[in-house]
């Protein structure tokens, strides 16, 4: 699903990732952990085609991303569901409209997907807030909204950047169980978090592995959970 070969990335002269080599198999569940500022967001951005590696190779769905045209990048972005660290909502649109946004920009008919949209709203327990605006909802609700928007296009892979960062334990568990559910449906999950308790709590739910990012290096940490 994702294949990194000696991939490197730097902001200016500051190297963030160096010689990162890793394979993420289709249907796998990966945690990405590491101290704050280690480059987790940077790595995820490469996985959802917001950044391109400076060196080495990154293949997503078997395609070398640096060889893609603008149009192909747009098409590929539609196959990756993203829960951004900073959410990235359009504040002038309602919760429902924000969830439907990926459909809208892909030129899909919203009417045809209405059932899907309502199902998603109740799946993330946001039906009662569907007509609220992003600035009117709580942190936990924002993360659930972001997750609903990430799955509306039925993507093969979901990338989530610290979705539990600003919510309490209980909400964190709720979000994790939604991701587990998606993984059981066959979707590849890559979840960045620095919360080790969250990582431990998945034990017994789905097989998952932990990638640890430190000093620009990515390593598979410990045993499979």
């Amino acid at each position, binding site marked *: 699903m994702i294949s990194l070969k000696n991939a490197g990335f730097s902001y200016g002269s500051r190297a963030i990732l160096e010689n990162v080599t890793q394979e993420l198999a289709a249907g796998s569940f990966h945690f990405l952990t590491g101290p704050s500022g280690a480059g987790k967001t940077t790595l995820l951005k490469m996985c959802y085609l*917001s950044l391109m590696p400076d060196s080495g190779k990154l293949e997503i769905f078997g395609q070398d991303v640096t060889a893609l045209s*603008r149009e192909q990048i747009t098409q590929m*972005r539609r196959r990756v569901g*993203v829960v951004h660290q900073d959410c*990235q909502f359009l*504040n002038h649109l309602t919760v429902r409209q924000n969830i439907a*946004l990926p459909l*809208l920009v892909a030129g899909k008919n919203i009417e045809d997907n209405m059932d899907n949209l309502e199902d998603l709203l109740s799946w993330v327990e946001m039906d009662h807030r569907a007509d609220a605006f992003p600035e009117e909802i709580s942190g936990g609700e924002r993360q659930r909204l972001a997750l609903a928007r990430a799955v509306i296009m039925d993507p093969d892979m979901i990338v989530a950047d610290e979705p539990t960062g600003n919510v309490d334990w209980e909400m964190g568990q709720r979000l994790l169980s939604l991701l587990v559910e998606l993984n059981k449906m066959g979707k590849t999950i890559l979840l960045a978090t620095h919360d080790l308790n969250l990582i431990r709590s998945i034990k017994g739910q789905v097989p998952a592995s932990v990638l640890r990012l430190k000093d620009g290096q990515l390593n598979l940490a410990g045993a499979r959970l």
Partner: protein
Amino acid sequence: MSFNPLEYLFGDKASDQVVPPRGGAAWLTGFASAAMAFIAVFALTLSLAVERLADYWALDLARSATVRIVAQEADLAAQTEATLQVLRTTPGVKSAEIIDKAAQLELLEPWLGSSLPADTLPVPQLIDVRLGEPGPDVQSLQLRLSAEAPGAVYNDHSYWRAPVLEASNRLRLMVMISLVLTAVVTVIIVVLSAHNALASNQGIIRTLRLLGAGDSYIARAFVRRITLRATMGAVLGMVLAMIVVLTFPSQPEDGGLLAGLSLSGADFIYPLLVPLLVAISAFAASRLAARYHLHSVT
């Protein structure tokens, strides 16, 4: 695949909801476009009026001529008679009538006043000539006149006609320049407004890109907004200008320049074209601006 601008603008009505509605600055585009349309319609109406007036004068002058006879009192009647004879036997001349002294004085009244001593004033004998279509062969007519009535001077008004035509040509040119300038200003306003909208929505554009929106989708949202706003402004400006023109107090036929400030029949097509042209140029200009902007940012 053929490109359909109407489909582009109206095919997906939801497309521009991704751009947040903005108050003040956004209305300036519409207002500026309304002002430009108003000026354009006004310039067009004025040019139509000038055209009509110039036609009226030029045609009237072209269809008539004057023969002036300057001769000794004793000779005058004979020469007048000979002149009339020559004129009436010339092909291309419809009629030739003596303008009697009273009528001549009447013509002079605006310049000289009405208290003229009619019989002491030496006025030449004038003959009003109505020309047919085509007119007479002026050179041979003049030759014959000089043989039959040496005091007769033929004048076909080309002397007065030239400046009328010259002035109307000049006015037409100025109107054309004004129209071109309004079009240029409208395009500049649209381009600036597109750049402003794109720049102030950087964050939204980035988000849309990450959610899988292509450049053309994003461009379309902005183009749609700006084109519709500029067109609405232009329609409003056109309607206001038309109201002013149509309620213009009507004047008698020969009321000069002001009499012509009206629209009739096919003339209405010109003001109606203004919003259409604004729409087309706003569409093209904002599309170019958006594409350029989106391509320069990754």
